[in-house]
């Protein structure tokens, strides 16, 4: 059986456009074919499922932080013949990925923006929805986190199994309608977001697990748990270990959730899947290291991307700033959220105070935030290329050869885009992307 005429036309047009776009910037190439496919056939996702994806098991990945990394973990576990989107997680990005897939593939793994989960799930009827976390991100665009969480919950009837983070009250409060849930737990992390019960606004208390004293909402017993040492627990017994190949406690949890999702669709034991996992290259430039051949002293630049307070704190707390120059980049474009207030929610006060160079279009906001937190701000330089150049100069003076950069979304992307000016050559742990 073949696709309905309209869907076939949509697919062919999208592919032609994708071919035409190969010379244009990558990001646009990811969205335009899908936009046109959806314009020609608004039911493009479900038409694909009903025909060419009849034997495809689909995994959707959503949440505030870690979508791209977790999707990359799942891709690396499922092997090469996987349909997947890289970069654009809106419906047209997903449609682009589907349009370019060749023939029947056993698996599709797609990261989906939280707001579009019900629509994408209704179209693709996924075997698994991986729901990582819900925390404040771009509040001026997404309005209230609670409403966004409720929106994800509306996808319940389209999903076979939910794989979700038991530590997140916003997820648990919106999980009641899912037919099957597998609860996963990671090492203790940021809990700054949901102290009022998302169901009844009563108070939540946190001990080993969290619970609401008013309505009884509580942390579900976890089916799988990973501790800070990477040991994998099930029913109180160690059954294996998790090696994400990327730093940070949050990546241990992302890796475990990816393993559980793959175990479900591949009918394998979780510990066996987890034992195969290791992603040694950076994901989309996150955690990549570059060799700056055009800068004084040819230092190494390590780039981190984080979009919100939880992400910034998690990344900054794992950076060893004793041996490196620290550069922080902040923009406030639409994709970042226009409001920079969130930088005051990053607990810089709890981090090691290290001399810092601030950069990006909103460097001034960061400079004041860091001063109040007790950091020495050594330069406020809106140009990111000049800021990294200045960091290289400082590093050379001190006999160091490492620069660590952390930026939010568009700051990060524009730094990567200007890498030619820095003479950046991708280092061992980098993937040449973006």
């Amino acid at each position, binding site marked *: 059986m073949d696709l309905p005429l309209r869907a076939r036309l949509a697919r062919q047009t999208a592919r032609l456009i994708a071919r035409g776009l190969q010379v244009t910037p990558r990001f646009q190439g990811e969205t335009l074919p899908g936009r046109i496919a959806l314009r020609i056939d608004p039911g493009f996702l479900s038409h694909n499922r009903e025909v060419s994806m009849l034997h495809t098991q689909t995994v959707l990945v959503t949440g505030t932080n870690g979508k791209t990394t977790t999707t990359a973990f799942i891709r690396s576990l499922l092997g090469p013949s996987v349909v997947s989107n890289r970069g654009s997680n809106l419906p047209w990005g997903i449609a682009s990925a589907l349009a370019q897939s060749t023939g029947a593939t056993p698996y599709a793994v797609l990261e989906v923006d939280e707001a579009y989960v019900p629509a994408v799930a209704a179209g693709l009827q996924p075997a698994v929805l991986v729901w990582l976390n819900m925390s*404040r991100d771009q*509040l*001026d665009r997404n*309005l*209230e*986190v*609670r409403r966004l969480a409720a929106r994800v919950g509306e996808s319940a009837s389209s999903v076979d199994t939910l794989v979700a983070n038991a530590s997140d009250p916003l997820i648990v409060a919106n999980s009641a309608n899912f037919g099957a849930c597998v609860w996963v737990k990671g090492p203790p992390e940021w809990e*700054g977001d949901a*102290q*009022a*019960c*998302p169901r009844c*606004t*009563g*108070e939540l208390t946190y001990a080993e697990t969290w619970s609401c004293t008013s309505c009884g909402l509580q942390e579900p017993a976890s089916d799988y748990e990973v501790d800070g040492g990477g040991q994998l627990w099930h029913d109180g017994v160690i059954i294996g270990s998790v090696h994400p190949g990327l730093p940070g406690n949050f990546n241990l949890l992302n890796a475990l959730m990816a393993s559980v999702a793959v175990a479900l669709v591949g009918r394998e034991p979780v510990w066996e899947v987890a034992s195969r996992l290791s992603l040694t290259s950076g994901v989309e430039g996150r955690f990549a290291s570059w060799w700056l051949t055009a800068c004084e002293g040819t230092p190494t630049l390590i780039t981190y991307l984080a979009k919100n307070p939880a992400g910034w704190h998690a990344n900054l707390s794992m950076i060893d700033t004793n041996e490196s120059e620290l550069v922080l980049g902040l923009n406030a474009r639409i994709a970042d959220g*226009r*409001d*920079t*207030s*969130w*930088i*005051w*929610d990053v607990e810089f*006060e709890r981090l090691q105070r290290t001399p810092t160079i601030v950069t990006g279009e909103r460097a*001034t*906001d960061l*400079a*004041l*935030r860091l*001063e*109040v*937190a007790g950091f020495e701000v050594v330069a406020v330089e809106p140009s990111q290329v000049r800021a990294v150049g200045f960091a290289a100069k400082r590093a050379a003076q001190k006999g160091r050869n490492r620069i660590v950069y952390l930026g939010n979304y568009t700051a990060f992307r524009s730094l990567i885009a200007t890498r030619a000016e820095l003479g950046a050559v991708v280092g061992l742990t980098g993937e040449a992307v973006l």
Partner: protein
Amino acid sequence: MTVKIVSLFPDVLGTYGDHGNARILAHLVRLAGRTCELTAVGINDVVPLDGDLYLLGGGEDGPQALAARRLADGSPLHRVVERNRPILAVCAGYQVLGRSFVAEGTTLPGLGLLPIDSVRGRARMVGEVLMTPFAPIGQSLMTGFENHGGQTILDSDCQPLGRVYRGAGNGGDGHDGIVHGSIVGSYLHGPILARNPGLALWLLSRIGVDVSDVPAHHWRLYEERVRASEGALWTRRRA
């Protein structure tokens, strides 16, 4: 003497970085050579009554209702007002101090410390705000970022915080906020004291802390944000 700054419920009314206001005040007090005790009061903690300056921030509907219930219990802020100690209340915190506000579709009683009522606005108000303050805070303009669905109506004899050139502020009267006795209310995040050092100095002067001036570079953010919005001054809106 130690200056005691009390930040109320940053754990639930801290969604928009407003706890930063407390951090800036503490920083300025220390720059003035005084010792400062900054207390972050959690939603389940007892509200101390001996503070010198109190702050309330923004948050979502559920946490806002929870905060209002906590502050109704034992009326700690009524006693703060009786002692004439300043309170800076932003967004949801500003609404909570009024007679009534709306959370999740229900009209709830506020603390009644401000002669205002907050209702649901027609559309959510999100974006940069530029205004001229009425209070003598040493700034010709004020800047901030608003993000709220509620509209606040002041009684007719009240003094708003400022007249809005860009953005919505209170939402219907061309003004933002209120200055009422020892209370300053506003919809501005940013946080408001990071964007407006003059307001921070003015609040501190009201508790006898004289920071003769903030370091010059503290004004850079104010200047940068004003410049980014100054076009609004040429298209002055009718009140």
